């Protein structure tokens, strides 16, 4: 009896510590995420050079000032935005279009939907290397070989500053449009049929129903796809690294690629981290804004 009273007052130790034990891995993971982030931010205020690890000095905002004054930074900033904005817009449009085509049941639709996710099943770096071979500048490239059959001279898809960024955007579209299609398909299939039936009774056109019913009801999906794809496109590295490494003449150098050159190839960790911190800040702003928009849309 005494024992039972004592247990009621003081729950047994394993039971009390269980919540801590269960959250322990999450705490470790949190520290694992925060520690490198804080360290990276700290490095932005130092002259840390990889080859001189014993000589790290505080330089205040000097790295930021120098980088913001450099043309290379603004060029990379522009390329990052053009890449991300173009890729996301095309993926949204293409994703929505294909999802509308595939939403209705017709013979072979299941097979088509299965084929659609193939690009997503290939690691992006492998897809990029595959596209590099397809886009080789001479007739060795598959695309140039095909164009050659109809008398078109070889085009340096990835080797000419006029076409390199466009080619990379198209590679990104090829890899990630299926993601947009899948989300939109799920969204379209969850829209109730009643509003469409009512509109049809009133004699509404397909275009009218698309603008006034489909798009508004699909807005949460559109925001979701934009959120995921925009953040990913701003951070893009693998596709560019595997194909152009930022060339030709800086035409495909994004903030992430420039940070790689600064930190890993030129050992200037302090400067490299500034590029990454700016990139993180952009992603943070956009993700915050889009998350708020998504919540608003859901409430509405």
């Amino acid at each position, binding site marked *: 009896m005494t024992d039972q009273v004592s247990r009621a007052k003081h729950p047994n130790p394993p039971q009390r510590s*269980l919540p801590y034990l269960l959250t322990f891995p999450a705490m470790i993971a949190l520290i694992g995420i925060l520690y490198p982030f804080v360290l990276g931010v700290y490095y932005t205020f130092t002259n840390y050079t990889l080859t001189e690890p014993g000589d790290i000095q505080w330089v205040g905002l000097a790295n930021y000032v120098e980088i913001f004054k450099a043309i290379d930074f603004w060029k990379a900033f522009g390329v990052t935005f053009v890449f991300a904005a173009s890729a996301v817009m095309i993926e949204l449009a293409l994703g929505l279009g294909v999802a509308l085509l595939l939403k209705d049941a017709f013979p072979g639709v299941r097979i088509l939907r299965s084929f659609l996710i193939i690009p997503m099943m290939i690691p992006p770096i492998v897809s990029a290397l595959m596209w590099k071979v397809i886009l080789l*500048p*001479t007739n060795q490239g598959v695309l140039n070989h095909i164009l050659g059959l109809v008398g078109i001279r070889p085009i*340096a898809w990835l080797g000419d500053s006029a076409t390199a960024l466009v080619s990379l955007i198209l590679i990104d579209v090829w890899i990630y449009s299926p993601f947009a299609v899948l989300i939109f398909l799920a969204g379209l299939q969850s829209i109730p049929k009643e509003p469409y039936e009512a509109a049809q009774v009133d004699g509404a056109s397909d275009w009218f129903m698309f603008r006034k019913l489909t798009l508004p009801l699909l807005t949460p999906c559109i925001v979701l796809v934009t959120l995921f794809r925009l953040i990913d496109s701003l951070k893009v590295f693998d596709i560019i690294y595997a194909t152009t*490494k930022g*060339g030709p003449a*800086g035409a495909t150098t994004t903030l992430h690629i420039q940070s790689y050159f600064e930190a890993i190839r*030129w050992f200037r960790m302090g400067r490299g981290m500034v590029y990454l911190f700016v990139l993180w800040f952009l992603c943070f702003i956009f993700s915050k804004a889009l998350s708020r928009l998504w919540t608003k849309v859901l409430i509405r």
Partner: protein
Amino acid sequence: MANLKYRFSSRLVVAILSGLFVLLFSQCTKKNRPGSAEIHLLLNRHPFTESILRFIPEYERMTGVNVSTLLLSEEEYFEKLITELSSRSSFYDLFMLGFPHLWQYAKAGWLEPLDPYIENPNLTPENWDPDDFFPELIACSRWNLEQGAGMGEGPLWALPVNEEAYVIFYRKDLFERFHVKPPSTYEEVYRAAKILSRNVDGQQIYGFGHRGVRSWSTIHPGYLTAFASWGARDFDESMHCVIDSPRGIQITDLFIRTLREGGPPGWPSYTWYEGKEGFLSGRFAMWFDANHQAAAFENPAKSRVAGKVGYLLPPAGPDGQIRSSTWVWSLAMNAASKNKDAAWRFLAWATSKDMLQRTVPYENINPTRRSVWEDPKTVEATNWDRGEYRRTAQLLLSKYARIRWTPSTYVTQAGDRWAAALQEIYEGNRTAEQALKDAAEDINQMMRK
């Protein structure tokens, strides 16, 4: 009952976590166990490494030492290496490098000087013979850590395992067919490239090929050879970047014009891998790169141009001098290694006469030891174009080929920026003068920090 469940689940969590920690720590201690009979090698994918890997089981049987290797392609290799060394990890005992990395890593204190090991009779076999290495290559591996000077002086930081100098590979059949004289000046290279950029029997041929990606490795082979032969330099005595000198601008303009008017489309996307493939598949009339690629070009199983390749010394500059660039792949020891003696024994074995000789049949040609280069088996294996390959290789090694970069820890940074300038000129965005002046200014600014 609920209490029992809680007790069981909490014990299960504790057991899993403990298991994970034990696993983690056992891996850590395994990594850093000192004096163990195991060495770890970080290697770049290269004919030398691919050939030496064949013989490692034999070494393990002979010595009882376990040798673990990680083989990566060049870009990934150097990223992995810098990550390991900058964190002062002792995991990898030996690794490969070239001279820009040797200068950077030696200055950072990451390389073990090798002279004491060579001089120790308990560690080095009597017949190992350090004097058998070509002296020029040993000189490339010594540096006294002084920025802008001191190559060939100071400690020996690495041992050379493969050497390359730069030649113009050319298609003899195409030159003969279109009555073009093999070029002996850079103006003649330009003219020949333009004439030979044509459709031949339904296949588009490009006159002249060279690496083009935004990397210091683009500067290094043919372009730096032409640049130095023209009398231009990267830095002056006070380590001021002078790539924008009048001579530098002149030869850069000519070189890039040759590529634009007589080269393949998309030159800035070419690494040496793509260029080599282009020449192998018969798409280039000339290819200016490392001479040991001859082993692939002359292999009928791989090449469509086997038996049709000629070897030209790089053209001379206006003063009649040939100043070829060169590259040396070497093996070096991690200063933080916990198994230095075992690592040295492996290094001595891998760079012995016998082993370097045995790597020759696997395309590790251009041996770094004189005895291997002159061995009848090597002579027979490399006697391409009726001995012309060996004649040019010999002349380059003994007379024309030297490291043309000024020793410093800034080669890769400066070279990457320089390569970006070449791409700008090629794209037509800037003139050679504008692009090189801006690049020189950026490099000087980079070095002031």
